[in-house]
């Protein structure tokens, strides 16, 4: 039988078959684990949020990610696409400079930065 002949004349042996099969299975293991976790994640997140809101005496949020249906997303992305596409046709004539280096001088930027940052402190 040909397959057996190949096995004899080549470097294929039981060990290498084990490597191939178990290797393929481990790849599946890795991606199935990810699938399993990310199938769960959105539920855990909305669960967590609901709990916190309830603890704070607020109404639970309408479940995020379910309010916006796929159809709406598709519509939005298509609209966005068309919009960007249009812009694209015009942009090659436009010349601008890179963002002026507002971030580096204490004279202007740092004040600017403060306003944004210290709300958090």
């Amino acid at each position, binding site marked *: 039988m040909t397959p057996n002949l190949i096995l004899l004349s080549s470097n294929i042996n039981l060990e290498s*078959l084990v490597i191939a*099969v178990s290797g393929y299975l*481990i790849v599946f*293991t890795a991606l*199935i684990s990810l699938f399993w976790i990310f199938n769960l994640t959105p539920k855990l997140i909305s669960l967590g949020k609901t709990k916190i809101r309830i603890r704070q005496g607020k109404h639970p949020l309408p479940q995020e990610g379910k309010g916006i249906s796929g159809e709406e997303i598709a519509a939005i992305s298509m609209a966005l696409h068309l919009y960007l596409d249009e812009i694209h046709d015009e942009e090659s004539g436009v010349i601008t400079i890179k963002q002026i280096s507002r971030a580096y001088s204490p004279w202007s930027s740092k004040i600017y930065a403060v306003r944004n940052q210290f709300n958090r402190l």
Partner: protein
Amino acid sequence: MKRAITLLGVFLIILLARWIAFPNSVSGTTSHESPVQNTTEIPDIESVDNGENAFSLAGEGLRKFIRYSGFRNASAGHLIMIGVGLFFIFLAIKYDYEPLLLVPIGMGIIFGNIPFFQADNLNMQIGIYQEGSVLNYLYFGVLKGVYPPLIFLGIGAMTDFSSLISKPRLMLLGAAAQVGIFLTFLGALALGFHAQEAGAIGIIGGADGPTAIFLSSRLANGVNIIGTAANGDPIYVKNLIGPIAIAAYSYMALVPVIQPPIMRLLTTRKERLIRMKPPRAVSRLEKILFPLIGMLVTTFISPNSLPLLGMLFFGNLLKESGVTKRLADTSRNSLIDIVTIMLGLTVGASTQADRFLTTDSLVIFGLGALSFMVATAGGVIFAKVMNLFLKGDEKINPLIGAAGVSAVPDSARVVQSVGLKEDPTNHLLMHAMAPNVAGVIGSAVAAGILLSFLL
């Protein structure tokens, strides 16, 4: 079809090249022989007798110039490889096949095959295999596997995993397509390659250039010892980085040629018309959690994938964290560009004719083509199997299984294209991106596993 000719062309060129360049050694491999062909003694102007007159000296100068020139040192192999390089550049510019890879690689092939005078006791530091040459320094990043993780950092910083997060089920397609890797591994063993070499060859089926370079730099680098000869000398693994890298990138560029026939062969028209439910929106928190969880899960399962997957998810975290925008920008622009230039150039230049035009290269190219086909089939068939367990609008269009081979984003585009031919309103791209990026993760995990089993 124009594209089919392209594919055929590549094969014929290499086949011809092998015969024309080294007609006598087709039966064996030459990779362990000395790369130096010219062992004539170095022409030395100083050795000219002092009694000679200026005229004969001028002749001597001319002779020396010619002896060093490319015209004198060119072999058929050099010219064929230069032709291949020009062909790659042509494909990139004319058909826009992966130009960011094929232009640097094509130019690198020319670079590496400019003929120059070689002799045992002379190192003019020109060629990529000559110590101290600039190319040799830049090649370091390939040999040591430093470039691929940096490429993955940039890829992570430019990849949006939303499609995958919203439909995690499609992740399985990215696993299924890795069957190409493991079957090619067995195929290479069957053809007589050693286990380490076979593992490196198998990874071509992962359809992922950086992963292929990384794995072959670890397994088939010409340095590892794989046995002992009768006389006690160590036997070294072959250095297959060049052929493997070129094969991987070539077939990635040829994905629009290779995949469609297989996809059509394995699916019914009804299946190709399946419309999939649009993905849901994904929250920022999920996007931030993805690289963190993804990294922990995959690298705990396969720690040897850390250099690749760690960098991929690190890059993605830089992108999604929202607070490190400038680092993500640099990763996916200057950094990845610089590394791409260096990587493409040196991988191309590593195809110096006397090292590259071997039967091994030819066999690797053959196995590579097969593995791409097997991987495509694996993805499509697994999608059909999944459909047996899914119902109604949950059903998967099996075409997107083909995107599981990775080759981001080309194979996803191929899916879109084949889908549109059946129904011009059925856009599959969004859905195909999920198995596409999952395929990147899948082949990096597979590379890690091969490393841990074979090293």
